């Protein structure tokens, strides 16, 4: 790869926390990579202490700014002036709202606009969003499309969804998320929380407790699993708005002593490392980090066949794929792996090899840097 010219890049993020989401973990890694490549990196974000600190330590100058939807117009005006003042070559949004902001900031200026898309557009429908809301967002999205110089999709599935929505194929680059295998191994060596069940085998899910993550299917699958594998125990790591509902469901199914609710565990690596099977029961996904982390720790993954998951989990090779919303199939797949530990281990090992070749942080960073280089070359050619 050639040298990147010294240039300023402004990332925009509006994840309010607490903590970092998967996209923010990637963003911090990307910032570190950009700084190492000699770019001058700024991050404009909403108040999120942990993100601000992590990004700052990764080498960015972090500017806190209110970017709530009700302030979009004022925020866009400010961002435009900030991007101009900083003489930024690139402004990059990291989600729907910040993508819209970045477009307005870059409109009519020489600043290049990159929009990273981490989720399939219809993901919101699973979390109580309406079809009308989705159409409105789609329409707003279309309107600002001319201002975007490049889209980044985190998976082929996300790219296809963008193209289906009218974005020209050539404008979209697929860059997979990446994980740091060595760092994960180090994190996994830390002690797991005390509330972790001691019984084995153990299956588990790590997710925000929101409908789109499909944890209800997991709970139902655990009830089914108890028939053939009464010895199996399970854990749910994470918290969120659906927690009450899910725990009620578990109580109704009399799973009190089969499921341990661990709440948020950060880092989750020690828990993942202790699981015999990691389950991803999602209804929609961009390119989630949990199965990548599980594979990096050589754990087999049972996942639903949605979004970018089939790109991560190769059916029968690094794990098993099942249809979404089918807890019976989920229970069968998990049961199959519990009955054949040798196969489960082989799938886990294959998962590790797959992560090491396809889903590393280095690869993710290199993908973005190559994109930036291409974009900057193009504008230099014009000038």
């Amino acid at each position, binding site marked *: 790869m050639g040298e990147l010219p010294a240039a300023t890049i402004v990332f925009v993020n509006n994840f309010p926390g607490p903590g970092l989401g998967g996209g923010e973990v990637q963003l911090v890694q990307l910032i570190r990579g950009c700084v190492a490549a000699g770019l001058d990196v700024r991050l404009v974000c909403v108040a999120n202490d942990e993100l601000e*600190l992590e990004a700052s*330590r990764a080498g960015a100058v*972090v500017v806190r700014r209110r970017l709530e939807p009700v302030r979009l117009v004022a925020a866009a005006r400010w961002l435009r002036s900030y991007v101009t003042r900083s003489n930024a070559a690139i402004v990059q949004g990291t989600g729907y709202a910040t993508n819209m902001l970045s477009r307005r900031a870059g409109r009519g200026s020489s600043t290049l606009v990159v929009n990273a898309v981490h989720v399939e557009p219809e993901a919101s429908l699973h979390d109580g969003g309406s079809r009308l809301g989705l159409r409105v967002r789609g329409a707003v999205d279309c309107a600002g499309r001319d201002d975007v110089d490049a889209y980044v999709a985190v998976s082929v599935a996300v790219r296809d969804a963008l193209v289906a929505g009218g974005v020209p194929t050539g404008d979209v680059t697929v860059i997979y998320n990446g994980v740091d295998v060595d760092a994960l191994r180090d994190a996994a060596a830390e002690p797991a929380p005390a509330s972790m069940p001691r019984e084995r085998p153990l299956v588990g899910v790590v997710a925000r407790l929101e409908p789109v993550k499909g944890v209800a299917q997991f709970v139902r699958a655990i009830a089914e699993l108890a028939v053939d594998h009464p010895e199996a125990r399970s854990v749910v790591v994470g918290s969120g708005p659906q927690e009450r509902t899910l725990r009620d469901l578990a109580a109704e199914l009399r799973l009190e002593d089969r499921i341990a609710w661990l709440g948020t565990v950060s880092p989750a690596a020690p828990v993942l490392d202790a699981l015999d099977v990691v389950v991803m029961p999602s209804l929609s996904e961009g390119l989630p980090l949990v199965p990548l982390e599980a594979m990096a720790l050589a754990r087999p993954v049972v996942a639903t066949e949605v979004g970018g998951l089939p790109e991560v989990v190769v059916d029968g090779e690094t794990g098993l794929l099942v249809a979404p919303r089918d807890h019976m199939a989920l229970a069968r797949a998990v049961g199959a792996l519990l009955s054949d530990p040798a196969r489960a281990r082989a799938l886990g090992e294959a998962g590790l090899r797959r992560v090491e070749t396809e889903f590393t942080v280095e690869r993710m960073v290199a993908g973005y840097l190559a994109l930036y280089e291409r974009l900057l070359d193009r504008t230099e050619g014009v000038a």
Partner: protein
Amino acid sequence: MSALRLRVTMVNKYYWPPHIGGIEAVVRHLSEGLIEHADAQVRALVCNEGRERVTQTIAGVDVVRLSRQLSLSSAPVAVSLPFALSDELCRPAPPDVVNLHSPYPWGELSFLLARPDVPSVVLYHSDIVRQQRLLAAYRPFLERFLDAVDLIVASSPDMVRNSKFLAPRAEKCRVVPFGLPVERLSGTPAVRRRAAELRAAHGGRHIVLFVGRFVYYKGADVLVRAMASVDADLVLIGRGALERELRELAAAQGRAASTAFLDRQDDDELAAWYQAADVLCLPSVARSEAFGLVQIEAHAAGTPVVSTDLPTGVPYANPDGVTGLTVPPGDAAALAAALNRLLGDDELRARLGRQAQARALSSFTIPRMVERTLAVYAEAIERHARRRAQSRGRAAAAPRETGGKRGRV
């Protein structure tokens, strides 16, 4: 592991870079020294020079620049500072000690408003000298602030003795001399080569050096007047509002040709000037000059200093007859005599220079400042715990005393 690392939060007006000043240099050297020599985690809560809140990690120090709403008498005001101070204690990894830097009226007021229950130390850099009217209004708050913190750090015993705010509180004052990157200033081969070039450019004439801002209390005008009867070149490095007056004064003395004004220099070039000079002069005329760090910088380069015997840390930094000479402030004739004495006596100059360098390299190093600061932090943590236990004791006793008022809401 990380749970055992000492966590310190610094509170100051600004952070360098980009904002440079004597206090900012100390804050940065102390912060980085705490990381390097004590593996501490250091955050700095300071003001941004603009309206945004900016976080930036500089050489391992997490610098949070709060948005500045206005500036009063050159003191920035960040409305959010009291909240930021309270929030510090709610962080997942709260500080073990808060180290404030004075004078910074808004910082001190914010501390009083927030009253964070955390061991606190203030590094008292100097008294407020010039803004007397501000001080009159501000004095009660400053007094309460100094009573509220656990310990006060001053850079010299003279500072404690001569400050009317510190003297009554001498019991809780501790002296920690400033630390500087003295090894760097003592001269690398490249710096020495550059120093030889600078000397050659002055054709063997003696060089008297001044380093500082051209502001009233630095007394550069006294030096320019003294130079009328000193046979040497004068080099002034700095910038400031009084530069034009100083140039005119030099011209009026007929010394325009032997007086050079240079803008701020980078670290290596400045080190070369300290090496090249025969003597550094710090002619300060007011108590705003609390210590005169440039004296130690010159000492580290083996250059003696002529300074004034102000009732601050200035003579402590440059003891008369040991590392240089001192004269009464504002006395151009005495200053000229001291300069002539030093420039006319190669043996004396060499001896004072040697002694100055030895003292700088032993007493004013960053590791030493860090070590002594850590001792102050430890004591502050202990005092805070004791004070807290006492007030809890009082609180436990209180309901009985005020029992009659209970139930009145």
